[in-house]
């Protein structure tokens, strides 16, 4: 049946005969491992085509979508990490195989006449592949590819006369943008592969025309099928295994919020191994607003990168144009060296030239790698920057797991409280407030905010208030005197009790109450307290943590502080309804000098002649409500002014100081939200339906 089918097919198409003619060729001298290069190259290219087409089904060439789509391929799609890994490392393998093929060809003298055109087509293929690699870097729109492309296209721009035009053609304008990406994409997936297929085809036609070059010295012959084919297949399986192994290595960033692998089936663990860092590298999305200090091409371009370091001023052109063109020309004329009776000389010269070029390129690549990974200071800087980029990449993919806004992947990190929020905190708050051990102002003028409004933070605040000289005591003199007074009173009560022979409980009770209050405030309480008599009585008997906490709060704090419209007094401490939650912070940042917060303290503070920084208000001055808030601010000031006694001798001075203290610093809604979430340890990115306005 099969035979009859083959006969029929062959009779109609000649396909079987063609296939036999290809496979059943004799190889004089026997099958050799050194003949595998060309065919391995073909299969490796085919692998690039297959994986490339697969990637194309998931890729989206747009400035705002490219990174997201590549992220999605590698981290969310089944085996996307493997497909992209094979393509990523396969492209590098292509370079290795091409160079290997080239060296073997020259070693065998196969580039000599009459095979000049075969050689030139091979060189052309090498050039096309090098260009294809370059166009491929940009496509994920991550930091590395983007900056490598900038440098690459600028190098192209240095070519005399046509350079600027070439650059404009490639970049699609003078700025990098949508058209750069679509052009690179078209070159990478259509134009260059099409050209490459044509060149490979012509190359093969010529190989067929002139016949292969063999070492005829060895005795005996072998047939291509299966003797040489087995070697080819083994070699390719080896190559494939290397590529698969490289892809499985953890080059990517680890998703912090990936499900624990133990909870997954073997299939999911393997199909989504990208989430655990397996797969090719993917850095954070391009953000031209951030500096990127480690622009490097892929390793096979490092020779040019390194050469450019040595060539300054007018010699730069030598590096950008001279070296590539010179090398190309040298390789181009290689067959002519062995013309006619100079064949033997040409062969030897060719081998020497190729080995010399290889040695030079290897040395330059090694030097470039040494500069980045050796034990030098600049290498240390490089490694630090690289580490920073890795961190950003990890953060970016972790955030992307929850979805990417339509504005693009770069927006993720711009809206990340943990990284961007920290930077903004450092910028706007870090000159007064500290945050942990990393953000430390030179002269702290306000409390540290790590763990703000947590139970521990509040307990520590109480501890600090016991010390008369502490920063906190100076900032909140009334609160500090209350703390010390209460402690003193409890101590005396205990001493009295001991003298009377009764159990001393006052100090312990005070500490217990404070602990209870701190725990209660750390929950950011907002629940209203019933005012009606019957409900109030029921509430007083309630033994929920909230009710117990509130009772302690009522006993100790409510004479100064307000809560839910209750309490307060002459001292008028800040309102503690929802203390330390997002809404409290939002309103507080909007007007810290409001009566509800530290306004009355400000009035007393302004009596202090010592110059001290007062917490400014942070508001969005571009908001449509800005004018409204301006009026609100005026009203607040007038209110505060009324608190200063009319007959005070230094009234004018105090009013001036107060006006100066009530500064307003412009801060956008987004930035404020980022800072708030950073302080509260809320890691959700600020976008998408989340409230920004107070």
């Amino acid at each position, binding site marked *: 049946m099969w035979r009859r089918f083959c006969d029929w097919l062959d009779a109609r198409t000649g396909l079987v005969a063609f296939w036999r003619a290809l496979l059943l060729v004799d190889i004089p001298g*026997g*099958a*050799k*491992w050194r003949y595998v290069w060309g065919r391995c190259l073909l299969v490796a290219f085919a*692998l690039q085509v*297959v994986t490339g087409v*697969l990637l194309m*089904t*998931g890729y989206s060439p747009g400035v705002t*979508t490219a990174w*997201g*789509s590549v*992220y*999605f391929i590698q981290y*969310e*799609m*089944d*085996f*996307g990490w*493997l*497909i992209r890994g*094979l393509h990523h490392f396969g492209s590098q393998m292509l370079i290795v195989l091409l160079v290997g093929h080239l060296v073997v060809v020259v070693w065998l003298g196969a580039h000599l006449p009459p095979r000049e055109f075969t050689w030139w087509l091979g060189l052309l293929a090498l050039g096309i592949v090098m260009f294809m690699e370059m166009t491929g870097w940009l496509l994920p729109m991550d930091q590395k590819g983007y900056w490598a492309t900038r440098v690459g296209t600028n190098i192209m721009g240095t070519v005399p006369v046509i350079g600027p035009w070439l650059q404009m053609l490639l970049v699609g304008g003078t700025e990098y943008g949508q058209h750069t990406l679509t052009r690179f994409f078209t070159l990478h997936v259509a134009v260059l592969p099409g050209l490459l297929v044509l060149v490979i085809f012509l190359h093969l036609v010529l190989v067929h025309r002139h016949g292969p070059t063999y070492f005829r010295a*060895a*005795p*005996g012959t*072998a*047939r291509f*099928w*299966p*003797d040489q*084919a*087995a070697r080819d*297949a*083994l070699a*390719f*399986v080896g190559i*494939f295994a290397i590529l*698969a192994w490289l892809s499985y290595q953890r080059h990517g960033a680890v998703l912090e919020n990936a499900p624990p692998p133990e909870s997954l089936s073997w299939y999911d663990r393997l*199909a989504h191994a990208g989430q655990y860092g397996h797969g090719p590298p993917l850095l954070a999305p391009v953000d031209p607003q951030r500096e990127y200090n480690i622009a490097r091409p892929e390793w096979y371009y490092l020779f040019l990168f390194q050469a450019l370091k040595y060539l300054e001023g007018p010699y730069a052109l030598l590096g950008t144009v001279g070296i590539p063109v010179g090398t190309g020309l040298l390789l181009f004329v290689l067959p002519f060296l062995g013309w006619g009776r100079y064949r033997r000389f040409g062969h030897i010269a060719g081998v020497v030239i190729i080995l010399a070029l290889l040695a030079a390129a290897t040395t330059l690549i090694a030097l470039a790698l040494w500069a980045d990974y050796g034990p030098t200071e600049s290498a240390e800087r490089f490694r630090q920057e690289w580490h920073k980029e890795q961190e950003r990449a990890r953060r970016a993919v972790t955030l*992307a797991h*929850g*979805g*990417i*806004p*339509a504005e693009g992947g770069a927006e993720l990190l711009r809206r990340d409280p943990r990284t961007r929020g920290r930077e903004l905190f450092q910028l706007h708050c870090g000159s007064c407030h500290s945050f942990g051990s990393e953000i430390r102002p030179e002269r702290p003028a306000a409390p540290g905010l790590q763990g703000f409004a947590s139970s521990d933070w509040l307990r520590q605040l109480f501890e600090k208030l016991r010390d008369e000289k502490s920063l906190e005591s100076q900032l909140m003199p009334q609160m500090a005197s209350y703390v010390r007074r209460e402690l003193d009173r409890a101590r005396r009560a205990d001493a009295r009790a001991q003298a009377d022979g009764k159990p001393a409980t006052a100090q312990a009770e005070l500490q217990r109450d404070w602990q209870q209050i701190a725990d209660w405030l750390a929950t950011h309480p907002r629940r209203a307290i019933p005012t009606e008599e019957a409900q109030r009585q029921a509430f007083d008997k309630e033994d929920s943590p909230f009710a117990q906490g509130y009772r302690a709060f009522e006993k100790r704090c409510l004479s100064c502080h307000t809560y839910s419209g209750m309490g307060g007094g002459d001292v008028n401490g800040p309102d503690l309804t929802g203390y330390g939650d997002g809404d409290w912070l939002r309103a507080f940042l909007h007007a810290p000098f409001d009566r509800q917060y530290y306004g009355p303290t400000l009035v007393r503070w302004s009596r202090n002649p010592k110059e001290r920084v007062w917490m400014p208000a942070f508001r969005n001055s571009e908001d449509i409500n800005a004018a409204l808030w301006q009026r609100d601010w005026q009203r607040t000031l007038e209110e505060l002014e009324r608190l200063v006694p009319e007959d005070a001798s230094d009234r004018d001075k105090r009013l001036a100081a107060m006006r100066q203290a009530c500064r307003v610093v412009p801060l956008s809604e987004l930035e404020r939200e980022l800072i708030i979430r950073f302080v509260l340890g809320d890691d959700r990115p600020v*976008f*998408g*339906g989340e409230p920004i306005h107070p």
Partner: protein
Amino acid sequence: MSEHPAADSALPQAESACEREGRRRFLRWLVHGLNTLVGVVLGFPAICYLLNGRHRRYQPRDFHRVARLSDILQNGKVSRNTGKRVYEVAVRDVRRDAWTVYPNEVLGRVWLVFDPKLPLQPDNPGSALKAFTSICPHLGCSISYHPGRDQFLCPCHTGTFDLQGRRVSGPPPRPMDWLEVRLVPDPTSPEHAPDYFIEVKYQTFWPEKAQRIPKT
């Protein structure tokens, strides 16, 4: 052969040919085996990769607030024969499309048909207030309202439906797809004229089926 270059010449010809044939058979199977191996190692992930859309199933949606009852009465088109009000609304929700999240995206449009003559039961508004998706059950075109004829019309293949959603003419295999609808009192409305929020549970259904089968 390169491993044993002397083998061919040293051994007798017949034995050598036999041995060579045996080895070639082995090599043939080796090549086929290796090809299959690469095919499977590449092919299996490739197929899974292409079929990954199975992870992105249709997301069931909860009830969404689409309008107030007063909106229909004020702005709905009035049917000449029956006095019913026909009003079109859009359903918005977070939508996730592969990697992109749209926080407030239109999921689809819904036709609301309200009969003011029938008594309104806020707990069970089904008889007076009906909701239909604007997706034609035939091949998924968009259904519009034809006020002159008091009919819903799918302009693609001219399927028509009456205001109850029943098929009148054309190729659609089933009535218009109705959606669950409920009323929630609007606390801000005055007591003498209570208003309601209309909430619709949005869903899409497979086209070209005689039954209304939700997409999953």
